[in-house]
C-alpha cells in the first residue's frame, strides 16, 4: 500500500507557484487559511477599536479620525451610518471570516489528515478551491466599504426590511448586495471544505484508527462540519431570496411599507421568515465554533495535564447531543420578535437543555486536570482561560435562553457581553491555544513563551474587564447596537462604564499586537523545533517531522494501536505512549500491517 515513489518525487519537483500558492497540499492550504483568517481578525479588531472609541468618547471630535476615515467621520466624529456599517462588518468578518474559517479551514484542515494518519484530504483540488473562494469572499466583503453608501449597515443579522431598501439605511444600497454575495461565496467555501472534512474523517482513517481512537480535535471539526453542512444551505436559500427581494421586487420578506417618504407596494411578505432562516444557521454557527474549540482544548488539556482525558466517550456523546440540539433551538433568538409563543416555549426548554451536554464536557475537562502533572505552558494557560470563560459565558446563556427573562434582556448589552464571552473570547482563546500549541508543528519553530505569557495575561484581564461589565449594563437596560448611550436619561449612569469598558477594550485589542509580533518574529527567528514531538503528545501529527513532509508520512502510513490520550500509564517508562507505538509482541511487517 505504499505510495509510489514517483508520486512523492513528483510533488517535490513542482514550481514555487504550484507548491505554495496554488497548492493542493492540505498543509499549505491550511496555512493560507490561517494567515487570511488572522488578517481578517486584525481588521475586525480594528473595527472593534472604532466601536469602543465611539461608545467611550463619541461626543468628542478627533482630528485623527477625520484623517483616517474622511468618508465616515467628517468633523472627527463617526457618523451613525458609518458606525452601523462598522458593527455589521465587525460582527460578520469576525464570526465567519475569522473564527469559522480559522477553526475548520485553518486548524481543521491542517490537523484532520495528520491526526487520522492520512496523506491528504479526500479531494485536494476541492480543498484548494475552497480556500480561493473564501479569499474571494474576504476581498468582496472588504470592497463594500468603498462603494456608495458604504458597507452593509443592518447588523450582522441583516434583518429585512432594513436590509432590503436603500432608503432604510445608507448601507442597504450596493453594500448590502455585496455583503450577501460575500456570504454566498463563504457558504460555498464552507460547504466545499466541510465535504472534505467529513469524508476524509470517515473514509481515510489509517489502519487501527477506529472512531473511538480519534483525537477530540478531529471529532470537533467533524461535528462542526456536519452542522455546517445541514444549516449553511438553508441560509444560502434565505440569502438568495433576500437578493431577489432587493433586486427583483419579489416580496418574500416584505410586507407593504412606507420607507423614506415612499410607499413600497409589496404584498404579504413576512419579515420573520428571514429571521428563521438566518438563525437556523446563526445559532448552530455558535456550535460550529464551540465544538472544534472544545476539541482543540481537549487535546491541549490532556497533553499538559499528562492525563488521559476524563470520560472520552461521555464527551463524544455530549458532542453528538450538542450537534443535534444546536440545530433545533434557533428560535431563542426570536422570543420577542413575534414568534409563536407556544413554539417559543419549546425552543426555550431545548435551549436550556443544551447546558447539560455543555456542562458535561466542561466538567470532564475539569476532572482531567485533577491530580495531573500540570505544565503551565502558554497553550495550557489559554486552555484554562478558555474553561473559565466558557463557564462564565455559558451561565450567561441561561438568562437569555429562558424565554421570560429574555423579554427583558433581549437586545441589551447583556447579549453582547454574553456572546462576546462565550463565542468571541472563548473561541479566540481556543484559537490562540491551538496556535501556540501547533505552531512548532506547522512552522518548525516555537513561539516565544515569555511574550506568549504576557499576551495571555493581558488578554485574560482585558476580556474579563471588557465583557463582564457589559452583562451588568445589560441588566441595567442598556440597549445593544446603539450609536451613543447619551440619548436616554436612564442610561446616563452607564456612560462612565462605557468609557471604562472602552479603556479595557482598547487594552485588550492592543495586547494582540504582542501576538502579532510574537507570531512573525517566531516565524523567522523562533527557536527551532528539532524534536518532532516537543510536547510529548500521543496523537499522530506529532509522530512525523516538523513541518511534516509532502504527503505527511514517508513510504508507510502509520498504524494505530491505541487511543489518543494514553498519558502516565504506570507500566511505561515514559509518561506518554504515542498512538502508533506497536504493543509488545506485535510483529511489524514490512508494510506496517500486522
Amino acid at each position: 500500500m505504499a505510495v509510489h515513489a514517483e508520486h512523492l518525487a513528483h510533488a517535490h519537483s513542482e514550481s514555487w507557484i504550484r507548491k505554495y500558492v496554488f497548492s493542493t497540499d492540505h498543509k499549505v492550504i491550511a496555512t493560507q487559511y490561517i494567515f487570511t483568517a488572522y488578517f481578517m481578525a486584525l481588521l475586525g479588531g480594528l473595527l472593534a477599536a472604532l466601536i469602543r472609541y465611539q461608545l467611550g468618547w463619541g461626543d468628542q471630535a478627533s482630528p485623527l479620525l477625520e484623517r483616517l476615515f474622511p468618508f465616515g467621520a467628517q468633523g472627527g466624529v463617526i457618523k451613525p451610518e458609518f458606525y452601523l456599517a462598522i458593527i455589521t462588518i465587525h460582527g460578520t468578518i469576525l464570526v465567519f471570516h475569522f473564527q469559522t474559517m480559522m477553526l475548520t479551514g485553518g486548524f481543521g484542515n491542517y490537523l484532520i489528515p495528520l491526526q487520522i494518519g492520512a496523506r491528504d484530504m479526500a479531494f485536494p483540488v476541492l480543498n484548494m478551491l475552497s480556500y480561493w473562494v473564501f479569499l474571494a469572499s474576504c476581498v468582496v466583503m472588504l470592497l463594500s466599504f468603498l462603494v456608495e453608501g458604504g458597507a452593509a449597515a443592518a447588523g450582522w443579522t441583516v434583518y429585512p426590511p432594513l436590509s432590503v431598501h436603500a432608503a432604510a439605511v445608507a448601507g442597504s444600497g450596493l453594500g448590502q448586495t455585496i455583503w450577501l454575495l460575500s456570504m454566498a461565496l463563504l457558504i460555498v467555501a464552507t460547504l466545499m471544505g466541510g465535504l472534505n472534512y467529513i469524508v476524509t474523517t470517515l473514509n481515510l482513517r489509517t489502519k487501527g484508527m477506529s472512531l473511538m481512537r480519534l483525537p477530540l480535535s478531529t471529532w470537533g471539526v467533524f461535528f462542526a462540519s456536519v452542522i455546517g453542512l445541514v444549516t449553511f444551505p438553508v441560509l444560502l436559500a434565505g440569502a438568495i431570496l433576500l437578493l431577489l427581494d432587493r433586486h427583483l421586487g419579489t416580496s418574500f420578506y416584505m410586507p407593504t411599507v412606507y420607507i423614506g417618504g415612499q410607499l413600497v407596494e409589496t404584498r404579504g411578505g413576512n419579515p420573520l421568515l428571514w429571521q428563521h432562516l438566518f438563525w437556523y444557521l446563526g445559532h448552530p454557527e455558535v456550535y460550529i465554533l464551540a465544538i472544534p474549540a472544545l476539541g482543540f482544548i481537549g487535546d491541549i488539556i490532556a497533553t499538559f495535564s499528562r492525563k488521559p482525558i476524563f470520560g472520552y466517550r461521555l464527551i463524544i456523546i455530549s458532542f453528538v447531543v450538542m450537534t443535534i440540539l444546536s440545530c433545533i433551538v434557533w428560535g431563542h433568538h426570536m422570543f420577542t420578535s413575534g414568534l409563536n409563543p407556544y413554539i417559543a416555549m419549546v425552543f426555550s426548554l431545548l435551549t436550556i437543555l443544551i447546558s447539560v451536554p455543555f456542562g458535561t464536557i466542561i466538567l470532564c475537562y475539569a476532572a482531567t486536570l485533577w491530580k495531573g502533572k500540570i505544565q503551565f505552558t502558554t497553550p495550557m494557560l489559554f486552555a484554562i482561560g478558555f474553561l473559565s470563560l466558557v463557564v462564565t459565558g455559558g451561565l450567561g446563556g441561561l438568562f437569555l435562553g429562558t424565554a421570560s427573562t429574555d423579554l427583558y434582556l433581549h437586545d441589551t448589552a447583556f447579549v453582547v457581553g454574553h456572546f462576546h464571552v462565550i463565542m468571541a473570547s472563548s473561541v479566540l482563546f481556543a484559537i490562540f491555544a491551538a496556535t501556540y500549541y501547533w505552531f512548532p508543528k506547522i512552522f518548525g519553530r516555537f513561539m516565544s513563551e515569555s511574550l506568549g505569557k504576557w499576551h495571555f495575561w493581558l488578554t485574560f484581564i482585558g476580556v474579563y474587564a471588557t465583557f463582564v461589565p457589559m452583562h451588568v449594563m445589560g441588566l441595567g437596560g442598556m440597549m445593544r447596537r446603539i450609536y451613543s448611550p447619551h440619548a436616554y436619561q436612564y442610561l446616563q449612569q452607564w456612560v462612565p462604564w462605557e468609557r471604562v469598558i472602552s479603556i479595557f477594550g482598547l487594552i485588550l485589542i492592543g495586547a494582540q499586537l504582542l501576538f502579532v509580533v510574537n507570531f512573525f518574529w517566531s516565524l523567522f527567528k523562533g527557536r527551532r523545533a528539532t524534536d518532532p514531538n516537543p510536547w510529548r503528545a500521543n496523537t499522530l501529527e506529532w509522530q512525523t517531522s516538523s513541518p511534516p513532509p509532502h504527503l505527511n508520512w514517508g513510504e508507510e502510513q502509520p498504524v494505530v494501536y491505541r487511543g489518543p490520550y494514553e498519558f502516565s500509564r504506570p507500566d511505561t517508562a515514559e509518561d506518554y505512549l504515542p498512538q502508533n507505538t506497536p504493543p509488545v509482541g506485535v510483529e511489524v511487517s514490512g508494510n506496517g500491517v500486522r
Partner: protein
Amino acid sequence: MAVSQQQASSRDRRTGFVLGVALWLFTLATLWLFGANLHKMPPPASDFAPQIDAILWVILGISVIGFVGLHLYLGWVALSRPAEVRAIYLPADRPKEWLWVLVPIGLLLVADLTFDHMSNKVWGAFFGKPPANAFEVEVTGQQFAWHVRYPGADGRFGRTNPRLISDENPIGLDLSDPAARDDILLINVMHVPEGRPVMIYLRSRDVLHSFFLPPMRIKMDCVPGYTTRMWFTPQRKGNYEIACAELCGMGHYNMKGLLVVEDEQAVQNWLAQQTPFSKRGQ
C-alpha cells in the same frame, strides 16, 4: 527542551500560583461587580417586573454556584503542587467515575427545569388570554418615532391601511371608517393608568422596531405587516422612557418616547384635552 526538568517545574509552579490567585481574584471581582451594581437596574414598575426579576435571581443564584464552584476548583488546581512524579493514571472511560460529572449535571438539569417552569408561568400570563378590562393603546413605529393611538370615546380603533400612509397621515388611518373619526394620534408620548392592565398593540410602518419598557421588564418587536401585542399592569406612578431595542437604522439610538403612568382620572382628563386626528388642522 532546552531547560532542565527542574527549572521547568519550578517555573510551572510560579505560573500556576499566579494563575490560581488571578482566577480567585477574577471570581471575587465579578461577584463584586454584580453585587455592587444590581441596584442600578431600573426599579420594577409593573406586575411582570417582580416576577421576571425573581427568575433572574434564581438563575443568578445557580450561576453564582456554578461560577464560584468551577473557579475555586480551577484556582485550587493551579495552586496545588503536583506532589507525585507522575500524574495519576485514570484509564479512559470507567462509567463509575462518570458519576463525578453526571451527578452535578443532574443537579443542573433539575435547576434548569425549575426555572424553565417558573419562566413558563410568566410567559403564559404574558401571551395568554389578555385581561378583559384592559386600557388599550396602539403604537406604530416609524423611523425614528413612536406614533401612539388611542381609540377615542367609542373605544374602538379605526381601520388603517398602509397604502394611505403619507406625511400628513403617518399611520394610514382610514377616515372613511366611522370608528376612526375620534381616534387620537400622538407622537412619542403615552399616558397610561396605574393599576389597570394596559394592552398595547404594536405595529410598524417601515422596518422592525422593538418597543422596550425597561422598568416594566418587557419588550416586543413591531413587525411591519403584523400586529403584535404586549400587556402589563403599571404599578408605580412616574415618567418612564420608551426605548427602541431593535436596530432600525441611523437614528435607532435616539428613538425615544415618554411613558407617563398616572391616575386613571388624570389619564382621562389628559385624553379629553387631545384633539382627534380627524379634526386636526381644522
